């Protein structure tokens, strides 16, 4: 089984998170209003923050289990993470940013893969530019390529498309969908955009106030208000 199972409990000043869900090698959308703990959940899965209690496993790979004192550092979780602000390194070129994602990959293969991803994501010709010199959509693709270079076993995306306009969002969504179909890894996209969730998700985890309200297919979860006809 190559899914992702998550059970997390974290108490912060003024906010309690208590979530539990499980997905397969599919594209899941964490959907909910801002302040519902979606981003925090991703950080806890990636090991960037520590929960008070919980268990996270990617397939057979145990990432966190507080009852057994297991808590792998983010470096050893093999998770591709696309940050809300993208977090591109401003002093590195597009090519070096992508290449930086190849930790542990042999040098020749790393360069070959970086070139391949740059081509695939339509970034050819921009290799020598700095992040400050390319457009928002292009930055998006660089962050995406960087996160994929190591062939992670899980992909997490924290509202990566929020800064883009509608047509670009659709393009990026389709790209994400294609990539997920190809890699067949558990992929979690955080969004508060219902249309995006409906268009992309295999499964939707509905969150509010630090809790999971429901989980299921997008049609069941993102039901239209009573009285409207689909």
């Amino acid at each position, binding site marked *: 089984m190559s899914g992702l199972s998550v059970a997390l409990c974290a108490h912060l000043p003024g906010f309690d998170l208590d979530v539990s869900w499980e997905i397969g090698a599919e594209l899941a959308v964490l959907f909910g209003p801002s302040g519902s703990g979606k981003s925090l959940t991703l950080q806890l899965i990636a090991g*960037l923050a520590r929960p008070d209690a919980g268990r996270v496993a990617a397939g057979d790979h145990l990432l966190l289990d507080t009852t057994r004192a297991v808590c792998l550092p*983010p*470096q050893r979780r093999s998770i591709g993470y696309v*940050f809300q602000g993208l*977090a591109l*390194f401003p002093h590195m070129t597009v090519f070096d940013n992508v290449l*930086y*994602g190849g930790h*542990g990959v042999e040098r020749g293969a790393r360069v070959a893969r970086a070139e391949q991803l740059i081509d695939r994501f339509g970034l050819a010709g921009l290799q020598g530019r700095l992040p400050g010199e390319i457009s928002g959509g292009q930055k998006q693709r660089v962050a995406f390529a960087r996160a994929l270079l190591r062939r992670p076993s899980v992909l997490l995306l924290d509202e990566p498309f929020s800064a883009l306009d509608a047509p670009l969002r659709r393009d990026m969504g389709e790209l994400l969908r294609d990539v997920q179909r190809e890699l067949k890894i558990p992929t979690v996209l955080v969004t508060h955009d219902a249309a995006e969730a409906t268009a992309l998700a295999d499964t939707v985890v509905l969150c509010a106030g630090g809790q999971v309200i429901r989980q299921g297919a997008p049609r069941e979860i993102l039901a239209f208000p009573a009285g409207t006809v689909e």
Partner: protein
Amino acid sequence: MLDGFDGSALAALALSLRVATIATALVALVGIPAGYLLARRAFFGRELIDALVTLPLVLPPTVVGYYLILLLGRNGLLGALLYRWTGWSVMFTWQAAVVASFVVALPFMIKTSRAAIETVDRTLLDASFTLGHSELWTALRVTLPLARRGIAAGAVLSFARAAGEFGATLMLAGNIPGRTSTMPLEIYGAVASGEWGRAHSLVLLFTGMSVLALYEANRLTRSSR
């Protein structure tokens, strides 16, 4: 204008440059890692340590010199051991001038590098960690390159402070012409013995050097934004 600019003035200039260069290199070696730890690690007594290393900034240099004598003098805590093992004492050598300059210049490096490192976006470090890179590698490839201008400015300020060190140097290294008399000591000596022309040229030269250093430090910090 450069009357009285003789061999001993040149020797003082050369000595000052040597002392300040070595002291700055040591300051960078100690100060950058210290600034990094103070910026990135939360540990018990962090602010106390910050205050302690900043102390030479506010203490009179003679007080710093006094502590250094207690530590490194022939009967000092470390100095006695050193003398017993090697028969050598750092007192009244040019190396003592390096030690004095190092101690008074170190706070500049630690303060500026800590501030520069703290401004680096935390998310960039998280990104590096999720990509599998260790904290050391992240520091070398992400944190320090992004903080480099602030760190360089700290090095320039340290160099200027090291080159201008007087009080602690006088106490620890003395004022031995050709051996420990750096520019500031040479200027003091020139005035004390009424050689105004000599003092004049030395002072002008030193002022020019300092203006250049400050200009460079400002340029580095400004363009970092």
